[in-house]
């Protein structure tokens, strides 16, 4: 099936048709957990994109060496190594983001999106397609997280990327910064996304 897709379709499928968040419902924990602001969503998206890209590359390069019985543990070790790299780099260079994302950084390991792509795509396709697949999926994930973070930040704290556009003492809809707001905002965003992707 994969052979029939052109590289462009392969890239675009992750962004629209098979969007990991809105369509496939993968990686919901970080999606809901860290998106209280657009910046956090973007940071998480890029961290996930990096791990996804590296793990897809490595898996597709060594797929013939891995015995199929132990492939899942092998994939998990590959993913966990890259997550550890991300964890250390963020702690050293962007401590602010490291604090904000907290426990969700080590939890990138169990993001079903990454293991799912390694198992369903990278272990069956060549290096180039795997890289493009990872880029498409990762960018789709980043867009979804940034959009959700932006909606929650605009409604909840009246700002976007920390730039505040309402008065200091204005009342904002605090609900959207709190946990319930994550579910509610994502519910309506996916209604909108479904509508847009159906009309196209």
């Amino acid at each position, binding site marked *: 099936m994969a052979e029939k897709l052109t590289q462009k379709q392969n890239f675009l499928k992750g962004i629209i048709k098979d969007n990991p968040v809105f369509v496939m419902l993968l990686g919901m924990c970080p999606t809901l957990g860290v998106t209280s602001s657009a910046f956090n969503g973007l940071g998480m998206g890029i961290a996930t994109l990096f791990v996804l890209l590296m793990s897809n590359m490595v898996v597709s390069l060594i797929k013939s060496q891995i015995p199929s019985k132990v492939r899942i543990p092998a994939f998990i070790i590959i993913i*966990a190594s890259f997550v550890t790299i991300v964890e*250390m780099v963020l702690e050293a260079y962007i401590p602010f983001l490291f604090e904000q994302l907290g*426990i969700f950084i080590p939890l990138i390991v169990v993001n079903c999106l990454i293991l799912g792509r390694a198992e369903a795509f990278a272990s069956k396709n060549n290096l180039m397609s795997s890289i493009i697949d990872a880029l498409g999926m990762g960018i789709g994930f980043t867009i979804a997280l940034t959009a959700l973070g932006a909606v929650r930040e605009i409604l909840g704290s009246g700002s976007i990327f920390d730039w505040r556009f309402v008065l200091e003492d204005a009342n904002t809809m605090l609900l959207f910064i709190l946990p*319930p707001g994550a579910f509610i905002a*994502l*519910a309506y965003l996916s209604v909108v996304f479904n509508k847009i992707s159906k009309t196209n």
Partner: protein
Amino acid sequence: MEYILILIAAVFVNNIVLSQFLGICPFLGVSNKVSTSIGMSGAVLFVMTIATSVTYLLHEYILVPTGLNYLRTITFILVIAALVQMVEIILKKVSPPLYQALGVFLPLITTNCAVLGVAILALGLENSTLVKAVFFAISNSIGFALALIVFASIREQLELADIPEGMKGVPINLLVAGLLSLAFLGFTALV
């Protein structure tokens, strides 16, 4: 008293699913029937308790003394994956009825972030001891079970409801989860 506070905090105030967003995948995935959600909760209780006690000991007596703290993520996920496999094999041999009930859910648990999340969070408890960490894991899995079973019962009722076309499927489930989370927000000042 301290233990009661941990229990109430984990079940109601900082509910692992509805306010910390761990374990959302099974929460949305296996919650269409009350019976399956009870099975999943049982499996999570089982694995989370064992996993947290093993990872806690491993962290305390191997990783910290040898200064290999940065290997935490890798070792924990490996231990959890191996443990899930082991539990599956042992249950199959020792208690076939229990295996029948939990079997399908066990492989799913490896990528359940609630298990890894609780194992990591348990390290951050104040003056943590092994007993406290294990109790923390049990409390959190009770919180997971509560959220999952309540959500599944609401979803069973939803099948009879007349839902607008665009809201069908995922959006309505997320909305229900949002309202449930709003209800749990009412417990905030409890502890």
